[in-house]
């Protein structure tokens, strides 16, 4: 009797969470998919997908989101990996450095945008530094950046913000790493670079993949710094379009359907990344075990 009870205990404990997910995750998301594929009268129609794809802003938003994700992740990963390798050593003041490195991570996105706006505005501190150091004579109009330059701006700002968190994930991975592998490699005459490439990287692969995919998912959903720095439409992103249809266009049925359709597109892109992540991480796990 007691055994039978015990068998059901875990399900009993899980029920609240599962019910919550049924009501507040599965049901709305399912309805979002249905909603994006139906017309106002409820009949099946791909009208809103066609309208989204036809929008001139869509291709720009799609391109920017993908470019932003690829460039920022690549940039952030390389710098963060270097930083993590460096900080994994024992040296005086490492804790203080870690403490400082955490600051940008703690700054909420809305504040990040304002922080950089105080820097990039015409009389902001960046021009002020450059003039004080006699690098420039007249202020540079950073905020008028267009196209790819503006995108690069946003990538740099994003990098400043998330670099520490990527670094900490990698550092955690490095600290769990058995030092003996590394030492063995060095004893057998490998250079530091070889040890990093052939020993540390493969063992760290699951951590690296985790860090990279998580960053990618966040990067695909970027919107706020773009709107706060440049306003709507200068550097459009997929989620920026959702914010646009919510914030600027009054909440009409039409704009609701548009934002719903955009959200479905974002979901599909993110979920494809997740599946990709699961596939690759399963593969890498097997490789490491061998």
């Amino acid at each position, binding site marked *: 009797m007691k055994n039978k009870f*015990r068998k059901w205990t875990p399900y009993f404990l899980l029920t609240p969470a599962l019910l919550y997910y049924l009501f507040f995750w599965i049901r709305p998301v399912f309805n979002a998919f249905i909603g994006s594929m139906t017309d106002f009268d409820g009949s099946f129609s791909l009208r809103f997908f066609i309208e989204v794809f036809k929008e001139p802003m869509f291709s720009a938003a799609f391109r920017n989101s993908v470019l932003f994700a690829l460039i920022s992740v690549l940039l952030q990963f390389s710098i963060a990996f270097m930083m993590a390798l460096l900080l994994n050593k024992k040296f005086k003041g490492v804790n203080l450095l870690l403490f400082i490195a955490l600051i940008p991570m703690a700054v909420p996105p809305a504040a990040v945008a304002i922080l950089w706006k*105080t820097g990039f505005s015409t009389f902001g501190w960046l021009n002020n530094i450059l003039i004080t150091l006699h690098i420039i004579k007249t202020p540079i109009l950073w905020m008028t950046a267009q196209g790819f330059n503006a995108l690069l701006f946003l990538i740099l700002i994003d990098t400043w913000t998330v670099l520490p968190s990527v670094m900490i994930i990698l550092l955690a991975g490095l600290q769990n790493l058995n030092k003996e592998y590394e030492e063995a490699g060095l004893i057998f005459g490998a250079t530091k670079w070889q040890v990093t490439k052939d020993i540390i990287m493969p063992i760290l692969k699951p951590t690296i993949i985790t860090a990279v995919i998580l960053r990618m998912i966040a990067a695909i959903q970027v919107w706020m710094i773009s709107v706060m720095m440049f306003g709507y439409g200068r550097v459009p992103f997929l989620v920026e379009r959702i914010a646009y249809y919510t914030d600027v266009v009054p909440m009409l049925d039409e704009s609701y359907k548009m934002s719903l359709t955009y959200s479905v597109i974002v979901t599909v892109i993110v979920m494809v990344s997740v599946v990709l992540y699961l596939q690759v991480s399963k593969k890498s796990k097997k490789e490491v075990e061998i």
Partner: protein
Amino acid sequence: MNQKSLIAKTVFYLFIATMIIAILVPFFLFLSTSVYSEYEVYEFPRKFIPRTSFDLKIDWVDDKYDFSVFSREMDDYELLIQTDNLDKLRRFLKRNLSVQKTNEEINRDFSVSKNGEPLYLTYKKDLLYNYKTFFSITNKAGKAVANSVIAAGWTILISLSFGSLAGYAIARYKFKGREQLSLILLVVRMFPAVAVAIPMLVYLLKMNFDNTMIGLAIVYSVGNIALTAWITSSIFSGINVELEEASYVFGATKLQTFTKITLPLAVPGLIACSMYAFLAAWNDSITALILSNNNPTLSLVIYKAIGSSSAIQLSAAGAVILIMPALVFTFIIKNYINQMWGEVKL
């Protein structure tokens, strides 16, 4: 060899120095901006340390006060305004220099210059002027801080109660579907918030929960229940089962064991979970924009302030208020970051 290690050391410390400068300089200059007066914002090029006071020169010319401020850049007094209107002077001092004086004080101090000699005096700047003004001109700011805290509170409550039960089950029991459950939790954590928030709007409208903090918390909790389950499961599996068994041996019931043994040991982890939940609610703006546009959270108010006001120093003051709790909590939970991102077991 020695020279080589010296170069390596130099490169190493240069790298660290660059990193520290790249993080701290923007942060410090942003903090300075939040205490700048309007006058300092347009002083250019300016000193990086904000002023704490202004050196003033008052001349009584043609029955008017010639009001000048010492400009550190020009190394001379700069004439800013000519008037005999005390109200005008008071407003000018307040708006442009963040100096708060009453008409009587101004009259008493300035009238000394009427004897023909230029009057030199120093007025203290109100360093918190931008912070006070942010709350008085953005009429929703005070309410917004309360909203953010309430939304965070609900998120903590929902995530902890639903998530820790699931986490306990995952840690302590072997059951069918355990692997699949971990997978589901992972997918939920990675799920874009907008994809839940937009369709949820329809339900919240039906339940009259639109523009409420409970409505927001319901959406924030979706990802946070999974995260809480994740963290608590690793905490509960780290708590020695033998301790619980010992408690049974001494005749304690299951509930007593849980509340007296297991729960106290799990408290630090549960606090960490609460802080994550807090940060998720506190930092978000897109969900608040979609679901609670008319009753904004602080993050949303700051997002909107940048569009409406040109006064960057006021937005900066608002942003500093937004940063403070986030900064404190991030530093407290930094030891759990490992658990949050690392060790993704499938």
